[in-house]
């Protein structure tokens, strides 16, 4: 089922962050939500994830969907190794071998047993992406997922994401139009 964001409004401390915003996310599509800083992209993502309640408006088509996310701040279990971070949220049947395969696809083959706190910013980002990709989801929301990755790595990780989506819906929040092009995504502007 497609997802419809319908006239969402949200204010924080009397300041309007989202004012009657609507958008449409077709099932199985890759959609990039773009817009200047502060227009409420992350807030909208949080509303879709159910972490923030909108003041008005509704989101239709989410009720039976399992959601996965790559948050802006990675949100990894710092003292756990990469493999264990992934297995914490992974769908049934994912084993160490599969985890290792996915990690090597994003250039993290040597990081399987390293605690998250010992990884660099770019490595943590890729780990957060693999964690989300291996979880059980219908809708994947990524908030600035490729931030901090150089062009070569970005290309590699985007190829990894595309090849593992397998027809599921992806919503990416980004500032970078090039990322949207590499993902071959629909673009929705938020103003």
């Amino acid at each position, binding site marked *: 089922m497609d997802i419809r964001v319908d006239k969402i409004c949200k204010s924080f401390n009397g300041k309007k962050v989202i004012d009657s915003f609507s958008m449409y996310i077709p099932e199985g599509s890759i959609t990039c939500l773009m817009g200047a800083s502060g227009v409420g992209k992350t807030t909208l993502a949080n509303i879709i994830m159910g*972490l923030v309640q909108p003041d008005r408006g509704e989101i239709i088509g989410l009720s039976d969907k*399992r*959601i996965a996310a790559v948050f802006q701040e990675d949100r990894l*279990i710092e*003292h756990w190794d990469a493999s264990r971070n992934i297995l914490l949220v992974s769908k049934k049947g994912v084993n160490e071998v599969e985890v290792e395969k996915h990690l090597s696809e994003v250039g993290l083959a040597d990081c399987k047993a390293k605690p998250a706190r010992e990884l660099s910013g770019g490595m943590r980002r890729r780990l957060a992406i693999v964690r989300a990709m291996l979880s059980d989801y219908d809708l994947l929301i990524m908030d600035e997922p490729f931030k901090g990755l150089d062009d070569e790595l970005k290309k590699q990780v985007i190829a990894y994401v595309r090849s593992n989506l397998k027809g599921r819906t992806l919503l990416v929040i980004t500032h970078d139009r090039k990322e949207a092009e590499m993902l071959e995504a629909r673009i929705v502007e938020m103003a």
Partner: protein
Amino acid sequence: MNMEGTNGGKVNISAPAGGRNPGNYFIKILVIIFWIIVWECLSRIINEELFLPSFGSVVLTLIELVQKQEFWSSIANSFSRILAGFLLGFASGLMLAAASYKNRVMYELISPLLKVIKATPVASFIILALVWISSANLSILISFLMVLPVSFTNILSGLESADKKLLEMADVFGIGRWKRIKAIYFPAVIPFAVSAVSIGMGFSFKSGIAAEVIGRPANSIGVNLYEAKLYLMIKELFAWTIIIVLLSVLFEKIVMVAIKRYGSIQDRAADL
């Protein structure tokens, strides 16, 4: 909500830098020797065994005590009762903290009661409890009452310190309760639990023995202390006091090692 104890509740459960350094042990031994010398000097200045016996005579008394069968049975009786009270108090505090964390009404209900328990003098509890229960079980109840509020306050603070962003992540991915406890709550609670053990252990030993001195259950450390005071056996009083301090420190160390070990097992466990 504040945490019990000092250091803002941030208790480092790993050894401090250089903590296992042989040099540090040497310094600790020197410190102990220094205070023994101070004790000995004071004893010689006062020159009255009834007020302050010498270190040597207390050690000799201790050696005599250790050879008696009743000494060990007194320790076993008191220790098991105080330990039971401590464990009951700690476990109850843990459960009440978890319930209060989940349910605000529960917190509002429990919190004033625990504040009253915390503020009430131990002696009031001991005298009141003597009316309710037998003197043999008095130290269990008193230890329990002393540890309960400490355990509750600290563990609730630990739960409240759990990373909110990680909890949101767990909500989005639909992570189950046990995995959440292992991954997010456990690391947050551990330093606070260690602090609760450290403070609660001291409380339970002091109050448990005080309860025994007043309740005088047969064959207990408290009774031995009481008799030492009654018959002015000051060397015995000192010897028993040393035993109580050593037991308290030893048990605290055992619990700390157990918590650290459990923490490291949790850290390594891959059986999600």
